[in-house]
């Protein structure tokens, strides 16, 4: 069961610090999310993993050993800045990608055909890349990342340009990879996807690791307790309530520190306030994200 260790990584550019003593670990069987605003240093860390950029200090280990070319062949990487050879045939491009990962021509071809089929692009194999739509090209790109059956998958914004059906498909593929004991690292801005997919996350801001750990634990420690309520009456006047915000047709009730949703429910029942809807809200990751960034990453 492989474990990826990012240990005290540091990388500075002329004027900016892209990674400042960043350490975290990703284990097999999990989908790991890397979050952070644009320019936070996520791509730099991923590029260091792929040996495209060398760190100024620190190291990245796989099962305690430095990563060599052979280990790197086990990684499927979808960079944010990605593309295909536009004037060439889809199948040729994929076979080339596969062979660069160490596959023989036959195996690369078989992998390409299998993944094109899985994405419903089987008929496009002989077409030139530039005749495909943007979404189709994106799927070809993901097929290229997966066709050598990597045990580690690193994807930078994999869902941009994908329609909902294919988004679900890719999500399933990633889940399946992690269930099979692989490591999946996902870098994205799309918080709902992080919530749906990731077990653990690392949030990078200005090159520093500002949040790291189990998503649920982070939510619990960082989030404010709130409840979505549809009820008549002055909710703001209740003793456990801190403040109330409109949330669609409902009220989002923020509880005072220490108060639990059950306390609010008890109060509502006691005072005979009719309740149509009562839903305990988990703090959206987006909120934690925004709050952490606004606080300057000092969380």
């Amino acid at each position, binding site marked *: 069961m492989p474990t990826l260790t990012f240990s005290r990584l540091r990388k500075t550019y*002329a004027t900016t610090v892209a990674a400042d003593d960043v350490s975290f670990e990703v284990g097999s069987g999990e989908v790991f999310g890397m979050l952070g605003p644009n320019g936070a240093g996520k791509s730099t860390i991923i590029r260091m993993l792929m040996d*495209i950029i060398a760190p100024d200090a620190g190291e990245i280990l796989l099962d305690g050993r430095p990563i060599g070319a052979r280990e790197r062949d086990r990684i499927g*990487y979808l*960079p944010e800045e990605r*593309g295909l050879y536009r004037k*060439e045939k889809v199948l040729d491009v994929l076979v080339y990608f596969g*062979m660069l990962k160490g596959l023989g021509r036959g195996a690369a071809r078989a992998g390409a055909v299998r993944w094109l089929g899985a994405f419903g692009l089987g008929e496009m194999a002989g077409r030139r890349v530039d005749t495909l739509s943007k979404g189709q090209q994106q799927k070809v790109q993901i097929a290229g990342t997966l066709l050598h059956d990597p045990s580690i998958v690193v994807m930078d914004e994999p869902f941009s340009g994908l329609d909902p059906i294919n988004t679900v498909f890719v999500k399933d593929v990633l889940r399946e990879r992690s269930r099979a004991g692989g490591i999946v690292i996902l870098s994205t801005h799309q918080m709902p996807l992080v919530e749906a997919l990731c077990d653990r996350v690392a949030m990078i801001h200005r090159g520093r690791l500002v949040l790291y750990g189990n998503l649920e634990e982070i939510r619990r420690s960082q989030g404010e307790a709130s409840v979505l309520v549809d009820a008549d009456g002055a909710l703001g006047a209740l003793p456990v309530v801190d403040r109330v915000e409109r949330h669609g047709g409902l009220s989002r009730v923020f509880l005072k520190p220490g108060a639990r949703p059950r306390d609010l429910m008890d109060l509502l029942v006691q005072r005979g306030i009719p309740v149509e809807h009562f839903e305990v809200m988990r703090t959206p990751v987006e909120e934690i994200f925004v709050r952490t960034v606004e606080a300057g990453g000092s969380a």
Partner: protein
Amino acid sequence: MSKIAVVVQREFLSTVKRRSYLIVTFGMPFFVSIYMGLVALVPAIFMAQSGAQKKESALVDEAGIVHEEEIATLDAEGADQPMRELTKRLGGTASGKTAAAMLERTAGSARLVVYPALDRALEALQARRVEKVYVIPRDYLETGGIEAYQRADASFGFGRSRARESLEKLLGRSLMAGIVPAALRPRIEQPILRGATRSFTIKDDGTIEPLDVAGRIARVAIPGVFAILFLMSVLVSAGYLLQGVAEEKENRVIEVILSSIRPDELLFGKLLGLGAAGLLQLVVWISVASMATSLLAATALAVLDFKLFFGCLLFFVFGFLMLGSLMTGTAALGSNARESQQLAAIWSTMTIMPPAFTWMGILDAPNGTMARVLGWFPLTAPITMMLRLGTGQVPWWDVVVAAVLLAAGVYLAIRISGALMRLGLLMYGKRPSVREILRQLRHA
């Protein structure tokens, strides 16, 4: 298959299969030969016509020394021997035959016609029946001077100078007639006949051998052919290399590739693949054009002097790898195709210019300081060493030093260019600062 081999295969096949490559490779010789044909043929036809029209010159012999029967023999053997030899040599190929036939028309046309008096001759000149009037004055034997008349509108051309040659020959023969025995006359006219001359070389151990003319030509031809091939293949392949790098940068495909292969491996694979494509193009051009014969000749000569051939081949391949990698690495720093091309041109200039300015000095003193410095400096080594090798005077250890230094240069160039590629290709739309380049080079 190694990853380098994968890149070589892909770069070669994807280039060769491109429509633009096919059009340029096979269309170019066709258009060039049509163009060259037009450029060469049209003036030649006009020249031939003008030569054919104005063929006679008048001769007025006031000194009374010209033997008219000599004019007849002159006409019979054709006015000028050198021209004849030239046409004979050209005779081999189809284009040579055309040229020879044309030369024949102009060459055989310079005739002298004796006129009894100057006024009659001048009349003929004004009436354009003759092109020129030559007068041998009474005091010719004392002074050696003659008089020549031509029209004010006379043009400059071959025909006239040949008429003058014929006249000189005629005068020489007329003066000898009756005094010099017939057997001596050809020797007085042409004391040394090239065709009957033999040359020898004496070796260090005193053995004497006939001079190997073919070998001598090989010594000049092999380095010459290699130097030209080197320049052409660098220019042709560099075009494909720069285009490929710019495309991968533009396509954003480069990061996917660099996550699977080291940049110096990628660069090396590209060099070999695209170099092969460029070389193939050259071979097609050269063989389709009638230069095939000269290439075949060079190959035949290679058999005569295989050491020289392989020496040149070595410097050709190493030189190509070094220059190609430097050009590509530098080009990766450019933010667009034009900038890339300008940056890459620095290297080709540095390679070509020094030997181009000093080649005479290098050939004169192949073991002099200048020749040695240029031969050992990796950038100027390829062309300089080809020239030096051609002289056959460079000691073997000197060649080995140059080859080792160049090999080190190739290694360094590929490492540096790999680092530059990694840096430049990931910086979309902007050029890295000098400081960043230096940092990256230290890392390499």
